[in-house]
């Protein structure tokens, strides 16, 4: 598994965790009597901030851990080449495209629920859910492209 694949795996795991947290909070809210605007919007903020922070920290920790593992494996202080080449960039772009398409479909579904008479909070909840799902789908598509060779 290459450095980029490990980074994407960390990103995928963090997005999955955030997704599970988000869904569990929504489920709890529903159990407690339905969606409440203040709670839904604070959950929005938490999820967005968590996604940014977890991704940054995850990326830094992955770098540090991989450097340590490389140093132990090779028993040298020579730095490992953590480079992103043209193939990595192409796979990244394809992943972003898949994410974008998935998010667009999610936004469309969210808008349709509103158009068909669901409350606005359902639409807002679906918007964030579709962004998390889009990131997960994007990560999976990148891992698939790496495994396939391209």
């Amino acid at each position, binding site marked *: 598994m290459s450095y980029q694949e490990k980074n994407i795996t960390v990103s995928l795991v963090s997005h999955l965790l955030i997704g599970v947290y988000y869904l569990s909070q929504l489920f709890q809210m529903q159990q407690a009597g339905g969606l409440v605007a203040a709670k839904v919007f604070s959950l929005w903020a938490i999820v967005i901030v968590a996604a940014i922070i977890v991704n940054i920290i995850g990326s830094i920790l992955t770098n540090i851990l991989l450097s340590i593992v490389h140093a132990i494996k090779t028993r040298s202080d020579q730095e490992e*080449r953590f*480079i992103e080449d043209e193939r990595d960039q192409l796979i990244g772009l394809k992943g972003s495209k898949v994410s974008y398409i998935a998010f667009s479909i999610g936004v469309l579904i969210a808008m349709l629920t509103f158009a068909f008479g669901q409350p606005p909070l359902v639409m807002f909840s679906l918007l964030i859910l579709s962004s998390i799902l889009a990131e997960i789908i994007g990560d999976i598509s990148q891992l698939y492209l790496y495994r396939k060779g391209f």
Partner: protein
Amino acid sequence: MDKYKVRNNVRKLRFHNNELTQEQLAEKVGVTRQTIIAIEGEKYAPSLELAFKIALVFGVPLQDVFSYELEGDEK
């Protein structure tokens, strides 16, 4: 329209160049070893610049490293 594919002799050329490893070739052309593996396996067609860099490492013209052939044709 017939389907063409970029084919290459990278593995053969590595062997004839003091058995250059994939890692060494990757370092010389500034890509990851995974990219060299994908090129050798003909799963990834490199950019023109990378193709020239690889040819430069082996000291041969580009057409000696890469060719554009009908898919399904044996090398």
